[in-house]
């Protein structure tokens, strides 16, 4: 089986089988990463460009390392070093990068749909590394990989996503993925950040943290972006933490074997208490390791689409 598109733009665009293929392929790469020599020659001679129009450390380094492990030549461009500041249009920028011979472009952009626009205009495989408040597909894939690894399945699991769903591309991608696999998804947070309309996607919305966490198997905690404070979504981080912060006490509501996830970077003491983040139920650092394997799988499979 192959992926159907040259690009990975979002989970919305993927079928269940395609997701399974990526996750299965990632398992293979995870084994590679456990070896002493972690590099494979799979994509030697090809070039990946990481085009980041928005600051990112975690995702960019993860992609960069995944690319290097596959023997790709890697170029990193960030908005401040590219011509964007000179007023060049996005299309012109990516066409220039294409002209340099890029086979893959990983795009991070603050505007939703930017990778989709790019993908229509260039031949290289476009990978969405997070666009605006739309999607962050590789994060959802690595989350699914981690959940499967820990619990053995996705179907039928009760999964709570807590926090700023409205502005979270991570949450959106996770919602699309987990509902495709028949998980029971609960969204928890203040009404200003968890709009009721989302229930039309087949999820349940909770504004009360305790009832939302009841018997869940997985808790995904989202980062509360500090810039939302003062915009009226919630009065203060203190009040947010009091109502929706994940503490060890609240964690007792969840199922006995529940795992705690966070896409990072964390605000300790706000959305997640330190003892939870560092506690036995936390799989946060494993998510980071799995991210590498999943991104290798995505690059590898996209290369296969064109063959």
């Amino acid at each position, binding site marked *: 089986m192959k992926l159907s598109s040259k690009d990975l733009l979002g989970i919305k665009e993927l079928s269940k089988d395609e997701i399974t293929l990526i996750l299965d392929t990632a398992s293979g790469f995870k084994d590679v990463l456990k070896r002493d020599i972690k590099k494979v020659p799979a994509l030697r001679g090809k070039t990946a460009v990481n085009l980041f129009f928005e600051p990112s450390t975690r995702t960019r380094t993860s992609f960069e390392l995944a690319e290097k492990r596959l023997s790709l030549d890697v170029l990193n461009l960030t908005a401040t070093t590219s011509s964007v500041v000179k007023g060049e249009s996005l299309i012109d920028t990516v066409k220039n990068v294409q002209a340099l011979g890029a086979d893959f472009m990983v795009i991070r952009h603050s505007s939703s749909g930017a990778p989709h*626009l790019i993908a229509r205009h260039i031949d290289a495989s476009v990978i969405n590394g997070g666009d605006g408040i739309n999607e962050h597909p590789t994060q959802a894939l690595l989350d699914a990989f981690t959940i499967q690894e820990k619990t053995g399945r996705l179907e039928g699991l009760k999964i709570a996503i807590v926090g700023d769903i409205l502005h979270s*591309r991570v949450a959106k991608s996770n919602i699309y993925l987990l509902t495709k696999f028949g998980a029971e998804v609960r969204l928890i947070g203040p009404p200003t950040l968890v709009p009721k309309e989302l229930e039309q*996607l087949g999820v349940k919305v909770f504004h009360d943290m305790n009832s939302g966490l009841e018997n869940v198997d997985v808790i995904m905690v989202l980062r509360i972006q500090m810039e939302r404070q003062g915009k009226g979504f919630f009065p203060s981080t203190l009040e947010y933490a009091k109502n929706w912060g994940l503490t060890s006490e609240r964690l007792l509501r969840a199922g006995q074997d529940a795992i705690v996830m966070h896409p990072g970077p964390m605000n300790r003491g706000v959305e997640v208490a330190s003892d939870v983040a560092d506690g036995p139920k936390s799989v946060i650092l494993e998510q980071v390791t799995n991210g590498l394997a999943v991104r290798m799988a995505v690059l590898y499979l996209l290369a296969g689409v064109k063959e």
Partner: protein
Amino acid sequence: MNPVRILIKNGHIIDPSQKIDGVGDILIEEGKIKEIKIQDAGYHPPQSPLSKGGSKGGSSRIVHHASGSDTVDASGLFVFPGLIDMHAHLREPGYEYKETIKTGTLAAVKGGFATVCAMPNTNPVNDNSSVTDFIIRKAVQEGACTVYPIGAITKGQKGDELAEMGIMHSEGCVAFSDDGNPVMSSLVMRRALEYTKAFNVPVISHCEDRNLSEGGVMNEGLLALTLGLKGAPSGAEEIMVDRDIALAELTKGRLHIAHVSTEGSVRMIRDAKKRGINVTAETCPHYFSITEDAVKGYNTNAKVNPPLRTQKDIDAIKQGLKDGTIDVIATDHAPHHKDEKLREYDYAPSGISGLETALSLSLKLVHEGILTMTQLVEKMAVNPAKILRANKGSLRAGSEADVVIVDANKEFKVEAEKFISKGKNTPFEGWVLKGRPVLTICKGRIYE
């Protein structure tokens, strides 16, 4: 050179201003309507122009006579007063790369319009009489049809200080609007509605509470959530419609609501009219033709402000057009350069190039039985003239010869590349529409 005489023969003439709805001839002399002759009421044309194709294909219907007269065979076609677009952006001065008065008016006549009102968000803004004067002169020199400038309500369209509306009115501005920018201060809007009573001109309100719409780039709802685009709720429009109705009631000024896009706005305007408040309203073809679904795939050609809404809004707008709540169909023609639309959705400018599709999209309402042909002509010619107090929108003898001849059945495919407008930004690309203008006459000049 303009023909001295034009005889339009055997057309189905609809002129609501004279209650004419019948087959007959129109004689034009020296740029004015000379006379209309309607055949016997009992006469039935061989083919009703609305039922089957009456088109004679591509060949010209004009016969030029050596005497300097032209005869136009309009059999099987409708003949209306030249259409009036109350709401267009001609972009000149300042944004000539998007459109000019020349290209915009040529697009207008192509679309059946003999008069276009130019919104003031040019550069510089039309907030003083020298810009007004420039637009009028330019239109006389280069324009294909009549251009009526609309002046800004406030200086620089900033919403703070009233612009010199009296002077602009005497220079030729027919209405005032800060279109694109709402007048956020209720006090300034009150003063504008009060002050313009001195000149008996309407204030056209772009209804949007900017605090509430806060950077929204499409309609708020599930689709915006799943596309990851920031939504502007219907309420952002409706709060301002409500406010402006309250101010119209308070001031007894003349309020015209621009580009109505929501069910709630229609309801509020209907209620206000019932209560006798001096309010009129317009909508645009895109608000009764397509929903927010057109945005899918981050289609920047479907980005418009107010945003495309939902089916229930379309239904309400159609009902509002039918029952007279909405007086006018305007284009909100907003041409943009291709490069500007070829951008991230968030950064692409709002607007649809509408002059060349408006009549065809509106004829759809007639084909669907929502409007009669007479109502359509009222909304696209008669009512705009009334609201603007312009001596237009009528085929009465002695009036300027603004006429449009329409083939109501001719099917054609929308191809933006063929637009005369510089703005190729349409969400209707590839649509097959039924009915289009065949020929437009502006002050006796024929555009085919």
